[in-house]
């Protein structure tokens, strides 16, 4: 948390500087979390770092990252505060920003240790299992799996993990829940696809990843299309990014594959919404 707080100070210092240099070479200012693998990292190793580098090259701009923790208020404090101009990944149709065409679709997935009976749907779960989930109400929200599990009467079974903040010896923020599957603390975890796919091959034991069955009826959607976010009135940039994303589609696709990102058969959120 302290790292994140210091990052806010960095942004503030960066704002006037960025404005002053706007007249020079074109700059694409990207709003990103400094410690959120596999999405973004200040080391540049996240897939969003790499996707934005591709896109910047395509539109003839230099990419600059403006770091801020991706918590409640992120869009307000970065994009809307004009500290930066694009958020590399954000759900299509989000109210707080104008979104580009989606460049990937992913879903929540079930993560189990290899060798166990795989779990492919909520119907495969049973009482008495220890089930790992993220965002269990901290900061006022629940992740979609938590809503679904609660609706199905699974509450005593749930074990909550943070999606941000480092705990010593528990790896990257999104890795805590994956480590809990690996070491047997939980029998299964329901995790958002990109971090699940990425960390599944990086833990002490091999883990299986199965996307939530797209035909299973759930109280809230489990599949989301992800595009880039710009300010609502920044239609020009959105169009430019759209064109770049079309052109770069094959390259981005193989980049995402190299991060193990599970991409289910295309089905839009609108189709899935109750």
């Amino acid at each position, binding site marked *: 948390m302290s790292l994140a*707080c210091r990052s806010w100070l960095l942004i503030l210092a960066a704002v006037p500087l960025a404005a002053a240099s706007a007249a020079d070479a074109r700059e694409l200012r990207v709003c990103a979390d400094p410690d959120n693998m596999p999405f973004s990292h200040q080391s540049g190793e996240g897939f969003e770092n790499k996707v934005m580098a591709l896109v910047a090259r395509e539109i003839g701009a230099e990419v600059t990252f403006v770091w801020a923790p991706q918590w409640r208020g992120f869009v307000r404090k970065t994009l809307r505060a004009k500290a930066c101009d694009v958020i590399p990944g954000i759900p299509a149709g989000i109210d707080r920003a104008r979104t580009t065409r989606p460049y990937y679709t992913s879903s929540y997935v079930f993560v189990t240790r290899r060798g166990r009976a795989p779990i492919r749907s909520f119907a495969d779960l049973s009482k008495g299992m220890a089930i790992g989930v993220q965002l269990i109400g901290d900061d006022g929200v629940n992740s979609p799996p938590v*809503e679904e599990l609660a609706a199905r009467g699974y509450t005593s079974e749930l074990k909550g993990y943070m999606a941000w903040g480092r705990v010593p010896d528990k790896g990257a923020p999104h890795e805590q829940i994956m480590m809990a599957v690996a070491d047997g603390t939980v029998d299964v975890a329901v995790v958002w696809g990109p971090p699940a796919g990425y960390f599944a091959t990086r833990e002490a034991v091999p883990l299986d990843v199965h996307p939530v069955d797209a035909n299973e009826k759930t109280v809230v959607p489990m599949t989301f299309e992800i595009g880039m976010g710009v300010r609502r009135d920044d239609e020009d940039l959105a169009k430019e990014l759209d064109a770049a994303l079309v052109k770069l589609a094959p390259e981005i696709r193989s980049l995402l594959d190299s991060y193990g990102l599970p991409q289910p058969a295309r089905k839009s959120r609108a189709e899935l919404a109750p």
Partner: protein
Amino acid sequence: MLRIPCIVSIVAGSAALFAYPVAAQDAPSPSAGPSEKASVQPLSVKPLRGPAADATATTVKPRAPAFADSGPEWITPGKNQAHTRYSALTEINAGNVANMRAVSTFSTGLSAGHEAAPVVVGSTLYFVTPYPNVVYALDLGQPGFPMKWKFEPKVVAASQGMACCDIVNRGVVFDNGRIFFNTLDGQTYALNAETGEEIWRRQLADIKQGETMTMAPLVAKDKVIVGNSGGEMGVRGWAQALHVATGETAWKAYSTGPDEEVLIGAEYEPFYDQEKGENLGVTTWPTDMWKTGGGTVWGWISHDPDLNLVYYGTSNPGPWNSSVRPGANKYTAGIFARDVDTGQARWFYQMSPHDVSDYDGVNENILVDIEWNGKERKVLAHPDRNGHFYVIDRETGEVLSAEPFHAVNSSHGVDLKTGALIYNTDKRPETGKKVTDICPAPPGAKDWQPAAFSHDTGLFYIPHNNLCMDLVEQEVGYIAGTPYVGADVWMKPGPGGHRGEFSAWDMVAGAEVWTINERFPVWSGALATAGNLVFYGTMEGWFRAIDATTGEELWRFRTGSGIIGQPTTWQGPDGKQYVSVLSGVGGWAGAIVSGNIDARDGTAALGFVNAMKDLPDYTTAGGALYVFGLP
């Protein structure tokens, strides 16, 4: 309540130093628009209801217990162990308050919300700032009240990101030559009141677990009693008693978990069946969820030395989303009575079982005595976030009355036979359901802002909110790369369109005597005096003196920023009476100013911003102490 991460770093330096108004500006201007005037709606007496109707309202009045000191000093934020916030000083009174002038101001240079009470002992005034929790001692014996000493504790900066609702602190307490206070990062300090030197300090809360401390301690006998904050962060609530001389823990009582750790044993005799059973702190939760179940102790503690009991409320249960924690979620959103010496619970009463609306139970418990239906009772008066003014027998935990002091539709009242709050299922938040016009909103009919009890009029003076909320359609959100769908909270003004009220409350009748409507929530504390005056501040920055009987405004002064502090009054070493208050808007309600939040996102500060969009048009951030007196 939810956190607003790292707000302070965003506004650093934006506000601190500006010229303060001095005297002369306080004369009410005839040209001031109606919007700037407090509108008084006197004597809107509701019909009598419930058992209170049997009482002869005209003759029976609650009385302050003998231990409720009303002397010329002000040594603890609540004034005395009974938390009456009443002073017997009369030099400043309804007849002359119009002449009152600012005599001294003192800037803190900080832009977060200033909620603390100035405390006065002998010739020294003490107060603590919001984070970084600097304690100032001012010399009242010198002209202009210059600084005598200041103490700067080492407070971990990351604690700012953990505090849910601005980085406030609710005050210091004096006892026997020592000053006690808490820091945001979870320490309790004891200082030498004369020199400002540290006597001891304890690290009690762990910010890595999301715990902070914002409350004002209470000294009861030889113990200083403190509690944690952070009910939104998945922490486990506790209160503990420290030896005043050494800081050693005498007892620590959790609000959730097994009886042994909640300090529930042989002496526990709750009044209602709903509070009876073994290990309810475990069994009223899904497996292990009590370990992060909230029930923090961030509000007020009062003390009855005759009964040897302390009283305090517990916060909302965690996590915020109630669907994953079926059960009553003991012992959250209720009041504990505990033995001062051992911490053992005597009784507990849960105002809001299985709370779904963030109705913390931490508001003040004001101790008064009364003849109730012909029988002498020692009671505590508790204006709760759920909108009911509870009158509870403080020996037994029996609820004698629970009348709504605000528009309430989230429940249909309290069944006095069973103690149960009767929830209105139509207004219950549920996943996937749009619910509009739920009253009160999460900050409750009244939040932390403490009421006062006049030993003369027998009325309670309640600063409070008038806020309702909509839970709007599911919207897609995004945190740490993780998409989710959830309802957003939008707070809005309650009936009448104003957002705050200051009410005189007749406990026996269960009705308002008069009410002043305010544009914004009244987020300051109240003060009552024997001069037939009550004082409070507004979020625009007005500090008002009101006739305690009629509700008529007799004096006002515009301070440099909005007021969310606790006014106090005391006698200076010159023998004159003074009134003091900290100005400096912020807190959960004022985060839009102190945190410089973009008004376009109404869901910021967990939906409070939607109801406060115009606050930046009325005030700016910046903390200062104001002291007033007669010429």
